[in-house]
């Protein structure tokens, strides 16, 4: 077996090993690659920054633990920024597991770092079944949609919710989403129908699909994947897990491109050799 054949039929365990090394090593030995925020991320940062102090921001955690490495830092960065600007946070989830992830993020950031008080500065409304109908229903009444919060406290007993009837009392909606229900529904039912400003955060794979909403101005900003999260961490001056993960992702992407190049070179060399053999056989 020559080199071309060896490369063509390379045991995939070698590929797995190389990928594991390229992900693990940069996490252990950081490369400290510089992160430059893109316009799509900067516009969201600027919007939150320019909102008057005490503005009411609705954050929807529409994802599950499988995408926490990508979307977790994104959500946390948004909470950090809202707290830095002293905005009030109303959290909710259209995905069942999102409410627990949100609660954890609110407690570790808003409560523990910025001394936010539950019910006064932030609230977690929890999960509500119904997908896009929940979004539409919030436009009519928060209390009818969510009679109680995550802790089963009636919304009438939560001081923060006293001044909130529907979307007219919300200054900004942030949706961190891993799929359906997610950003398109928020754009259609809260953005278009109620004229609300929306910032979206999504996984890297769904970013191309959602980019038209940003290009058309239906989204104020779109954060795509770990890079979007790392850029936001840079902007708020709180480098965290996303910034660390970018080193690993950068090296892994370069390696995957090398794999594609090597795979194509061996494919063409093998094809050419087969053609040559065919010609020789025909001549003889």
């Amino acid at each position, binding site marked *: 077996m020559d080199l071309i054949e060896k490369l063509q039929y390379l045991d995939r365990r070698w*590929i*797995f090993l190389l990928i594991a090394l390229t992900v693990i090593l940069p996490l252990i030995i950081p490369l400290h690659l*510089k992160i430059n925020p*893109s316009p799509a991320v900067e516009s969201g940062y600027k919007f939150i920054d320019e909102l008057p102090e005490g503005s009411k921001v609705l954050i929807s955690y529409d994802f599950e633990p499988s995408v926490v490495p990508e979307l977790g830092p994104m959500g946390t960065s948004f909470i950090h920024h809202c707290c830095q600007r002293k905005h009030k946070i109303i959290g909710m989830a259209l995905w069942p597991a999102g409410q627990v992830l949100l609660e954890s993020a609110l407690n570790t950031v808003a409560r523990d770092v910025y001394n936010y008080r539950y019910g006064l500065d932030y609230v977690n409304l929890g999960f509500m079944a119904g997908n896009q109908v*929940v979004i539409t229903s919030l436009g009519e009444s928060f209390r009818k949609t969510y009679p109680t919060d995550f802790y089963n406290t009636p919304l009438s007993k939560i001081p923060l919710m006293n001044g909130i009837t529907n979307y007219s009392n919300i200054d900004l909606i942030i949706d961190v989403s891993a799929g359906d229900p997610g950003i398109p529904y928020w754009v259609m039912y809260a953005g278009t129908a109620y004229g609300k400003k929306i910032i979206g955060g999504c996984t890297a794979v769904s970013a191309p699909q959602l980019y*038209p909403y940003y290009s058309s101005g239906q989204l104020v900003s779109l954060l795509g994947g770990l890079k979007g999260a790392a850029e936001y961490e840079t902007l708020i001056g709180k480098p965290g897990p996303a910034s660390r993960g970018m080193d690993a992702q950068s*090296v892994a*992407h370069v390696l*995957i491109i090398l794999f594609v190049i090597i795979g194509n070179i061996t494919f063409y060399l093998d094809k050419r050799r087969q053609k040559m053999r065919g010609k020789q056989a025909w001549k003889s």
Partner: protein
Amino acid sequence: MAKYRIPILIAMITGCAMVIREFIPHYPFNILNTTFQQWYMIIACFAILLGVGSLLTIHGQKISRRRPGWGYSVVLILSFLIITFFGMVGGISEKGEGFIGSGFNWMFEYMYNSLQSTMFSILAFFVASAAYRAFRARTAEATLLLLAAFVVMLGRVTAGEYLWSQLPIITEWIMDYPNTAGQRAVMIGIGLGIVSTSLRIILGIEKSYLGGE
């Protein structure tokens, strides 16, 4: 025939009422909208219960009939019962502190969270393996796609900027124009499809949602 006619009539009346509501947002159509929304949310909650019932029935049958892989079904049912128990007993006790220390949260944080992340991260290995074996520039279109993928993959990570400072700009251009144009075409197609299917349901032409042929 009533088995089909009554649901078709319900769909027709409901659909027409929702369309009229968009043009006449006054009584009684505005009330209808709110009522339908509440009904939908209640039905969605019951759908979760239905899902749980179906899950337990299917896996219960698999265990009782000792079908291949029935051991996994035992694990699934046990995990379901344990996490439900901890969720209902002390899952949320008091504001903030009670939840974080609860057994339910412990299982969510250290079991469910880790298991889901592990499953998703395995994808990286398969993507790498597929990149090596399947991404071939066999045709001109495939070559174009491959080149666009190269640029976007590098332009979306910090390493791309180090390799060539123009890469993020080209990436933004690809995302802004060719990608947006393609995605918009797909979205418009889907939108038109939704409108036509909805009309077919309202007019009683589309009956596949009722089951059967």
